[in-house]
């Protein structure tokens, strides 16, 4: 139990071991453990980000689906409207065409009627003249007759 140089020897070995521990043990271990901590933190963050991305993607998909549905509905509606419009237009055209045909037919009929009237008039005039010739049985001047007949035809 004597105090002697062992004291100094122990002091020196203690300092040596501290230096060794600091240089070759502590620095490496702490660095490695911090690296792992960073790694784990990164991993957790990545997982967070991935789940957030997933959520976002789902939201986006839902949105897109909704938009697509809206678009489809709009297209269908437009198509319906267009169909109705076409039908209406067709109806209108048919009415116009019908009217036009009617008017044309009427005009033709009127024309025919007028022609028939004219013909009748002429024939009546000739008949009347023939009747009158027969009645008179005389040589009436051809020219005077013609004037008479024309006059009569105009009066008819």
């Amino acid at each position, binding site marked *: 139990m004597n*105090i*002697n140089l062992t004291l100094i020897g122990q002091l020196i070995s*203690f300092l040596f071991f501290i230096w060794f521990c600091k240089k070759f043990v502590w620095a490496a271990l702490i660095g490695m453990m911090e690296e792992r901590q960073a790694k784990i933190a990164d991993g957790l963050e990545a997982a967070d980000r991935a789940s957030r991305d997933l959520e976002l993607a789902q939201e986006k998909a839902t949105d897109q689906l909704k938009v697509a549905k809206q678009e489809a509905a709009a297209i269908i509606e437009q198509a319906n409207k267009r169909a109705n419009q076409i039908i209406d237009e067709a109806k209108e055209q048919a009415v116009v065409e019908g009217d036009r045909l009617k008017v044309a037919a009427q005009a033709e009929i009127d024309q025919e009627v007028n022609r028939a009237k004219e013909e009748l008039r002429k024939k009546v005039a000739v008949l009347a003249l023939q009747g009158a010739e027969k009645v008179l049985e005389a040589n009436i001047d051809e020219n005077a007759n013609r004037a008479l007949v024309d006059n009569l035809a105009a009066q008819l």
Partner: protein
Amino acid sequence: MAGTNQTGTEYIQHHLTNLTFGNHPEHGWSFAHNAQEAAEMGFMAVHVDSLAWSFGLGALFCLLFSRAAKKATSGVPTGFQNFVELLVEFIDGTVKDSFHGKNVWVAPIALTIFVWVFLMNLMDLVPVDVVPYLLSLAGVHFQKIVPSTDPNVTLGMALTVFVMILYYSLKIKGIGGFAGELALQPFSAKNPVVQALFVPVNLALELVGLLAKPFSLGLRLFGNMYAGEMIFILIAMMYSAGWILGLFGGVLQWGWAVFHILVITLQAFIFMVLTVVYLSMAHEDH
């Protein structure tokens, strides 16, 4: 027992004598042949066994831990790396709890102290006669295998801690700050004359407090381990007193060893924590 014709006192005396190499006034540089010669060598002597065991255990610590550190990966830790990381994390936490300054040396110091002191204390659990007996067959007469039962070892470490305390106190606080801390506390007065009167009183109190730190640190470890070792030796004496007492001694030794597992860990931890606390105090700038 090393020799069956020893008396109990001789047996104990034998177990408490270090293998000493030193400058004997009559025989010159040589190994001491008995405790008296070792005492006569004075300061110029070395406890070969204490130094060899403590250095060997320290080297073992360095070897194991540096190998673990070299192999360590930041991936999933396995086996010994797990254990080392557990220890490192534990020490790191303890240091962060009680040391608030900025010094990268404190944590490695704490780790070194904890593992090294633990390993030195652990030698206490080796049955007291095994190594000395084997070495006596090889011609080595004295052997104390528990370095921490040697006051030179514990006080040597405490002295190192004391040097660190002084170094960091001077570095952080400066000479003036450190001297002021010693001279102007705990008594202080506004009146300069009264203050001057207080200075010697303060110095006396604070210097005692300062010196008590390393002494209590070293002697606490030494006392605990020495007492534990002493009880192991006393128990070991029962082995030569018939087989009934020998059997009883075996049970006692087992029980004391189990209890001692707690003591050696606790003492290593206390030495470490106190060192950290002392260094923390040295870093506190007022």
